[in-house]
């Protein structure tokens, strides 16, 4: 079973992501911000990270950069799931090493499609 780390400071958003992914057979672990996400990612083996951008303590882009510095996370897919939709922000995400950018509110079927695609 693939493990997905969902990082978001909104409990509702984490719950929505977890429900959609768990209903499709994935194991989901959660983190409330980038710092906790980094801690979870280093203590558990994770197959995919889905992170929000605007969070306290550590934002999503910083989390992506921090993860990409770790040997185990050089090729693990990382998706940004955020309300940010500007091209400039997406370019920053790409430069940081993100695999993809999804804009909230997400469509569950689309999220599952993207997850299946990047985990292939």
């Amino acid at each position, binding site marked *: 079973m693939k493990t997905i780390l969902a990082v978001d400071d909104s409990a509702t958003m984490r719950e929505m992501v977890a429900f959609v992914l768990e*209903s499709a057979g994935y194991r989901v672990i959660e983190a409330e911000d980038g710092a906790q996400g980094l801690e979870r990612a280093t203590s558990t083996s994770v197959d995919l990270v889905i992170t929000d951008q605007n969070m306290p303590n550590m934002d999503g882009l910083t989390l992506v950069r921090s993860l990409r510095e770790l040997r185990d996370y050089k090729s693990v897919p990382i998706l940004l799931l955020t309300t940010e939709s500007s091209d400039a922000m997406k370019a920053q995400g790409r430069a940081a090493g*993100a695999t993809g950018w999804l804009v*909230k509110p997400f469509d569950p079927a689309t999220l599952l499609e993207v997850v299946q695609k990047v985990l292939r």
Partner: protein
Amino acid sequence: MADPRNPGTSDAAQAAGLLVAVAETLNERLAVTAEELARSQLLLRESSAHLMIAFRGAADRIVAAQNAAANGPEERNAEYALVLDHLYRAVHHLQSHDLVNQLIDAQKLRVGKMREKLEEALSLAAPPAREPQQPEQWIERSRAMLDCIVAGIRQIDDDARAPVRSDKHHAGSVDLF
């Protein structure tokens, strides 16, 4: 009070009085806005909390039933998939509740900052121990008040830094790099 024998001082004092009236009126309106935002958020939060409880109950049941019937009749699994599809639609709308809640938080913060600046402007208008007697002193005080009022109004520009920026056009979009 302004010196009535000096018309320059009297005019400058009147101008300062106008600024006070502007700041007070804006502050009163913002107080009403802040209260309405707080009430709206409370209603939204209560409604979202009830929806989440109902959602959790349904979601837990359907996932458990789906797992239990994984190798069961195809017809039943199709029915579960249909229920799941309805819950997926709810996921979409529950996210919107959450985003609106964040948007209200951002608006409350902005209104709060505007009010802080207006109150600062009003505090400048409070009668000092020695009232200004010269027009220059009134003008200086008015300028300081005006700076505060403008700084308060500029909080509206902070919209660009609001946490919720997704618009309908981009919502749900996907870019894979």
